[in-house]
């Protein structure tokens, strides 16, 4: 694979950026939604105020315009399908000033509204007018409460409530309506779900197909004017299956595939993954249960990505927590206190790179140019040779990070928080998969263990592979991790083997994690349940 040196890649992105900017002025004129929002924004910024009360110093309209289709299937039959057009407006209206405003005080600073799905100037503007009015009144209310609260208190971190950032103007071509042959895709989901008919040991299963075309807008009184429509992926195929083991233990497995309608569909590869999932889950029914395990665990494939997601990613948000009536800092990320400290072994380096579209020639789904607060996406160095050097930030800054690095991402009806985009974990030890296993077995031997546990996904309860010293592999059922947290990452003993990509969708926020396999020592996995449900009253009708 040929990879551009980093500097060249950044240069290429900048080029794209400016190109998009220059070719857009024509399309702007015909975008009724954009015109309605900009006109109302201008009027509100000039005239919206209650005499005697503080006026808005910042107003932003974010609009998500979706054309959506979903189809849910099981065992070869459609449960339902539907098509919807939806528009959501989020108003971020701030009163006071950048230093001290209504944000960060219990009440969400972003207010969500529905907008008409049709491009009708009058109706859109009317809705935006009412939404802005409501948001202003709520912001005033919060502002007065917050002012009263701070009349007796001093903030420990005196950073501005809202950071000053460079203005971004970016208008991609407007995305059209969703063009999809619904019946064809229903058929695909149906036939994938029908594969489960051959696995009567699985009690229930579903295949859900979701696809959307979207336009995202952001307009602010600071002059940001953004329209993006290029999604890294536009559809997802989600597979869930559940069953019970012989001893009654509940088992489940999931699998998600993300892709673009415009790319040739890798139906064969999805089919194979579904079959592999079904086969594994069926075999797990009779697999032995290991109640307790303490020792090294090798995280391969998706499990390595999930390990980062569960125990590292959610601690990366550096934005200052809310200063609500309870003044304790317990909600703060524990990584903030570990800045410039070693948090993992020195062979590991981690970056988050939103503008990266592919890694190892594989598409990444966390890709974007501008974040949800209108800040240009930036590559952030998080860990350098084991040392924590950076965190993700939004415009709700803290003294350690006085600016946003373009990582504010919201799910529907959520508050802005800093989240990862494409997290790239690299190891300076270029070990082969074979070498990883050898190292793993050595560690097991040192610990005096008869066998070691390899995990390939972190579904609950955990299931994995028991690796015997002679290389024999055996499918096993396990309990759950006990006591594992971000500080456990210091016990990573090795990283290498094949680089795998893990993609996930958390509340509509897409992210990718690229990582080598991880060998972590001193992992405790113990049983979580004291009872299991009995087997069903009758055999699965599929086995009749």
């Amino acid at each position: 694979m040929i990879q551009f040196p980093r500097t060249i890649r950044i240069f290429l992105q900048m080029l794209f950026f400016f190109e998009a900017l220059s070719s857009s002025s024509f399309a702007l004129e015909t975008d009724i939604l954009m015109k309605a929002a900009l006109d109302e924004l201008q009027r509100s910024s000039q005239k919206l105020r209650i005499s005697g009360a503080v006026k808005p110093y910042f107003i932003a309209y974010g609009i998500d315009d979706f054309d959506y289709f979903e189809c849910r299937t099981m065992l070869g039959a459609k449960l339902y399908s539907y098509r919807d057009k939806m528009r959501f407006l989020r108003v971020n209206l701030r009163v006071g000033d950048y230093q001290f405003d209504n944000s960060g005080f219990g009440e969400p600073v972003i207010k969500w509204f529905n907008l008409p799905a049709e491009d009708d100037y009058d109706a859109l503007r009317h809705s935006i007018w009412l939404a802005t009015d409501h948001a202003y009144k709520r912001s005033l209310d919060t502002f007065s409460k917050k002012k009263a609260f701070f009349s007796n208190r001093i903030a420990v971190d005196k950073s501005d409530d809202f950071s000053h950032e460079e203005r971004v103007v970016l208008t991609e071509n407007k995305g059209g309506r969703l063009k999809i042959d619904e019946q064809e895709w229903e058929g695909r989901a149906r036939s994938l779900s029908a594969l489960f008919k051959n696995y009567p040991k699985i009690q229930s299963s579903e295949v859900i197909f979701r696809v959307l075309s979207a336009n995202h807008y952001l307009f602010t009184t600071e002059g940001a004017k953004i329209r993006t429509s290029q999604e890294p992926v536009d559809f997802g195929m989600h597979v869930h299956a559940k069953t019970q083991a012989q001893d009654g233990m509940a088992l489940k497995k999931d699998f998600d595939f993300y892709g673009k309608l415009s790319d040739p569909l890798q139906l064969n590869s999805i089919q194979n993954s579904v079959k592999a999932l079904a086969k594994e889950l069926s075999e797990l029914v009779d697999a032995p249960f290991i109640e307790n395990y303490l020792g090294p665990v090798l995280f391969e494939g998706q499990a390595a990505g999930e390990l980062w997601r569960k125990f590292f990613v959610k601690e990366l948000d550096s934005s200052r927590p809310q200063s609500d009536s309870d003044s304790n800092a317990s909600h703060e990320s524990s990584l903030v206190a570990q800045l410039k400290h070693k948090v993992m072994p020195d062979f590991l380096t981690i970056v988050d790179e939103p503008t990266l579209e592919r890694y190892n020639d594989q598409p990444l789904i966390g890709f974007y140019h501008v974040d949800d607060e209108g800040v240009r996406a930036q590559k952030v160095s998080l860990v350098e040779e084991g040392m924590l050097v950076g965190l993700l930030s939004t415009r709700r800054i803290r003294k350690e990070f006085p600016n946003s690095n373009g990582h504010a991402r919201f799910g529907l009806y959520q508050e802005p928080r800093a989240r990862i985009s494409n997290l790239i974990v690299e190891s300076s030890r270029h070990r082969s998969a074979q070498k990883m296993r050898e190292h793993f077995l050595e560690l097991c031997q040192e610990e005096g263990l008869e066998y070691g546990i390899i995990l390939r996904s972190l579904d609950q309860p955990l299931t994995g592979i028991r690796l015997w010293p002679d290389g024999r592999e055996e499918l096993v059922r396990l309990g759950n991790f006990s006591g594992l947290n971000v500080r456990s990452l210091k016990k990573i003993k090795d990283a290498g083997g094949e680089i795998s990509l893990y993609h996930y969708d958390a509340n509509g926020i897409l992210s990718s994690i690229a990582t080598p396999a991880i060998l972590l020592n001193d992992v405790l996995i113990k049983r979580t349940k004291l009872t299991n449900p009995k087997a069903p009253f009758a055999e699965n009708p599929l086995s009749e």
Partner: protein
Amino acid sequence: MIRKISLSIFCSALLWIPSLLCSSGFVIETIQTELQKNFQKLKKTENPPYYLSYLITEIEEDSISANYGATENSSHRKYRHLDTDLRVGTFGLDNTHLGRSGSHGNRRIESASIPVENDPPAFKNTIWMETDQAHKNAVERFLKLESQKKVKAEEDDPSPDFSPAPKQTFSTDVSSLTFEKNQWEEKLKRWSGIFKSYPEIYGSGLRLTAVRSMKYFVNSEGTLLQTGRNHVRLTIQAETQAEDGMQFSLNKTFDGSTLESLPDEAQVSDNIQAMAKNLLALKSAPLAEPYSGPAILSGRAAAVFFHEVLGHRLEGHRQKIESEGQTFTKKVGEQILPAFISVVDDPTTDHLGGFELNGSYLYDDEGIKAERAVLIKKGILNNFLMSRSLIKGFNRSNGHGRKQAGYRTVARQGNLIVESEKMASESELRKKLKEEIRKKNKPYGLFFKEIEGGFTYTGRILPNAFNVRPLLVYRVFAAERPDQLVRGADLIGTPLAPLSKILVTGDKKEIFNGYCGAESGSLPVSAAAPSILVSEIEIQKKEKSDERPPILKPPLQDPSAK
């Protein structure tokens, strides 16, 4: 008051003719086969069920909403739900036992999505999993209840949790609603655009829903029922705010079974103009003051009043739940209303005075044929709304066990109809109101014209009260002067007092078609009543927001907005 099961009722059921069913025969046949098979297999378990039923609800819904001249949303949905009612124990005591605290925590029933496509493996698999879950839950709950019963004091009403019922077979099919969606989208857009000429009306909109619903029911008693219903509803809604922050919202609904039964362009337009005028009048109307005195409730207002005050308190299961207020439980055979008033709940009729009734059905959700229940006969309490859960003195269902998909059945209203033998014309009614005002030496009386809906609290912990939310209330003066619209009045009270104070009624019934929410979910209902004159009713000030009206003018009306 002797109640025997009358055989004739059940013999009149139509015979089930499979050939009529064509494609949809699949659903009823499949759930019947699976029921027999699963019931047999469960019989061999340690705690076998004594009753099992499957209900599949199939909904096909088109919905369009428009506001300010634009389509807000337009959607089409089709889905099916499977509800499993599995009972362990005996008719006397089973896992559904309500106990002292009532149905809390037990309102939901095992319920799952089932394919809209007629696919045997998917159906069998879903039914199997749901039956297993229902059985596990039922066994656990029953064993707990059974041992609790031994250590707790006897309940006031130890009536059985369930009652046997004869087998029923009936099948009908309902054709899909033909629906020119584009045309209707255009209509709704056009109509919603009328509000643009009323800058002081801030929010407004129209919604059209067209629903075809089918129900497929089988049980271990051999009952097989396939019923269906088409329902269309057009809603017009608009709101504004007075300078002091009080918000007003008016709405108007039109219900029917076909799109053709909805009003035409001119009628809709008239309704919108009238609504707009009323809203503007409300905005500048004087505030209502707390008041107690004589009043007329229009037919629709009276209908909601009866639904809340009387109807909910006559739902059978409330008579044996000990946390309920039980206003009427021990009043059977007693006079609770003036002797000229009778009240029935009649789901078997679907029209009244040329209008369609929303609460009609052929069979209830427990497989019982719907019956006209005479609740109040010449002012005397005669019967309750009964499901298959029995109460003291009432040992059979009268076909009022109803529920929304996903909920457990309780007794509910269908079409509540108030009949009167002491009627007066509208003008006489007004005359009598003025007489009352003079007699009581009141400055004015009240006329409740339109009503949004209401709610009632039937329990014991909070005061046992009702609240009816009027939209349009007028002061009526004894002297010759026009009625005066007032704003911000809520009609309140405890249930017994106002019922006994009805003096006379109007001579024309009005219908309130709506949806009623209670323990067993949201259900279509109707209430019909003539207008009533009551000697005393109480209103309180409506809760109001302190938010001021929008600061900027509507964009369309702001000359400086480009």
